[in-house]
């Protein structure tokens, strides 16, 4: 049974008077421990699918299942818990809180999970050490390089030990060397922790080099499920 599954998912947005169909009857499954890349051009609906997987959005039709259970009946509060416990997300633009240090960004996620105050810092330092940033813990995002910022974001995404890491163009704002570094890191982490990774990218080469499987989207439809 796939850990994450989209079943005939349709998502439409209203842009003023016109309706944009971002996803149209999409079905896809992610197995536990897989590294799946979702690729497609801009506007293909790949980020929309990731957001649906991440519990940030809900489909108009169809349903998303986590571990065989539909997310549809979850209240917004339960959805927040799902985001907190089950999935970790990283973004192209890192989305760190600029006024907080690396450590504070990580502890924020721990605070939402209700980790005791005294445990948070040690846990955050541990996580930052895992991404190789133990010396940068007290720096703000503006004092960190793009690669470092993304690693802080990864530390934050992993803070509450999610089952799945969802990455939305994680290398999009990095130069190729940093991008390779980051991908190596993700790959190694996956192998070590047997974590499931779903990555959205438009970079075919990157997808081919690292992913176990590729889902191709075009105009809101899966054109090559590979599975």
């Amino acid at each position, binding site marked *: 049974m796939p850990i994450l599954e989209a079943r005939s998912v349709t998502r439409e947005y209203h842009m003023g008077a016109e309706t944009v169909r971002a996803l149209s009857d999409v079905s896809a499954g992610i197995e536990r421990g897989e590294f799946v890349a979702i690729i497609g051009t801009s506007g293909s609906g790949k980020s929309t699918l990731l*957001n649906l997987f*991440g519990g*940030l*959005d809900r489909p108009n039709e169809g349903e998303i299942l986590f571990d065989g259970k539909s997310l549809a009946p979850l209240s*917004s*509060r339960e959805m*927040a*818990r799902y*985001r*907190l*416990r089950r999935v*970790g*997300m990283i*973004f*192209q*633009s890192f*989305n*760190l*809180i600029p*006024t907080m240090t690396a450590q504070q960004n990580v502890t*924020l*996620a721990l*605070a*939402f*999970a*209700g980790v005791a*105050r005294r445990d948070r810092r040690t846990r955050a330092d541990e996580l930052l050490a895992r991404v190789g940033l133990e010396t940068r813990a007290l720096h703000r995002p503006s004092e960190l390089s793009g690669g470092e910022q993304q690693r802080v974001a990864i530390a*934050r*995404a992993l*803070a*509450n030990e999610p089952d799945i890491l969802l990455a939305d163009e994680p290398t999009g704002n990095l130069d190729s060397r940093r991008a390779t570094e980051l991908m190596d890191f993700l790959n190694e982490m996956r192998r070590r922790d047997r974590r499931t990774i779903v990555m959205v990218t438009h970079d075919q080469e990157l997808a081919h080099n690292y992913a176990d499987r590729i889902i191709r989207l075009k105009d809101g439809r899966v054109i090559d499920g590979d599975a």
Partner: protein
Amino acid sequence: MNLTDILALALRNLRQAKLRTALTVIGVVIGVAAIITMVSFGIGLQQNIISNAFAKLDLFTVITVFGANTDELIALDDTMNNPSNVPSNNADASSNNADDDSGDDPSDPPQGESSPAASPTPDLRRRRLDDAAIAEMAAINGVRYALPVLMFQSYVRYEGRTERQRIGGALASVDYNPRFKNFLAGGSFTNDDAREVIVTENFLDRVAARRNPARRARRNQGPFSPAPVKSDEQRAEDAASAIGREITLLTLPSAAGPEPTSVFGIPLGLLEAGDQESGPDGRYETHVFRIRGVLPSDGGVNFDQFARTDLYIPVEQARRFRQANRDPLELMSEALIGDAGYQRAEVRVMDPTVVRDVQREITKLGFRSFSLTNQIDEIRYIFFVVNGGLALLGGIALLVASFGIANTMIMSILERTREIGIMKAIGGSDGEIMRIFFFEASLIGLLGGAFGVLAGWGTDRLANFLVNRYVVKQGPYIEFFSIPWYLWLGAIAFAVLISLAAAVYPALRAARVDPIRALRHD
């Protein structure tokens, strides 16, 4: 995320926009300060009137009992002698001040509306207020003492000047007369029949002013009282220097009136041998009293009418002098119906709560009575309304501030949309986001409230100083404002409440931020 975390986040957010937070807080400060200043003035006024002025005179524990006046007694007498006469109903409406009060005693209640315990219809069966009646009242449960009110006017000579003075009789025991608890100098009578007199500071000042007319011009006739610009030391010194001086009461020679040998069974013995001297040609007699104590003039709002008596002599002395100072009309009524008894008696109760019960008992005894209890309730209610109005005015300022709070919060949300989106993406719930903003708002309210109370207090102090310095000018320092604990606590709570109300819309809006839209990179 527990409350401490939310608090920490809210604090952090406020710190990040220090100027904006400060400006918003200032808005609340002004609102709260306005409420505090207005209401504290209202409460201060209330306290000046009710608590200070009335409580100082212990008016909550006193019941004034009215005996039948001479007209009523004469009417009663006529009815008894001639039963076919229909008793006239207007007896009660006639003057109650047939004797020594010159018809203007303000402590007499308005007829018919004085208090519920006052008999609603004139009652010809009403009793003579004599010593026996007073003894019955003294026996009522909860009564500390019952005494006839002995007050009369007499010519008095002091420091070479002679003038008419109102003289009251008082007990030597301090327990029986709370007014005699604080003396500026000296003390209470040695006994109830001593040739001693207690004067007020007012009296001494008037005498001094008469000797030195320049000072009289500076006397303030406004509601905010009197008293010379003297230091406390000077006052005490002046008072002390008066102790032991002589005050002479003047009476007609005892032969001039039909002197009864006793009043209500008390042997008169007014003029003991060697006690009195005659004036020039023996046309009047002089009775020398020595000043035993000086009472301070009350500061604050001056209810002159309650404290108009400036001279007190021991009660037994007063009984006899009152008798000796009857006017011809009184003598006439005595000729008609015998002794009319006392006009009034003062019944003091142990505790203000029993006033009404005691008044009921007194009614049963056949006397009308009057207490301030009902009037106080009414005054309290009026002040409640006034304070409410003042609070409303201050509340308007706070209402304006609440729009500032809402504005600040909305700005803050616009600025932090992305941050809110991030928080949601990493697992923050709508409720938690909302709570952060409610905390921010209540912190603004709390800060504004706390500083507002301080600012209101400061304004009060400044206004009080200025008014005392430039308007009242003389006399003891008057406290115009009062900030009781419930006011500052209530003002802060109100500020927090208003802030929370102002944050409802912004917080809902923050909770509704769509994380996808918030995180969409530009």
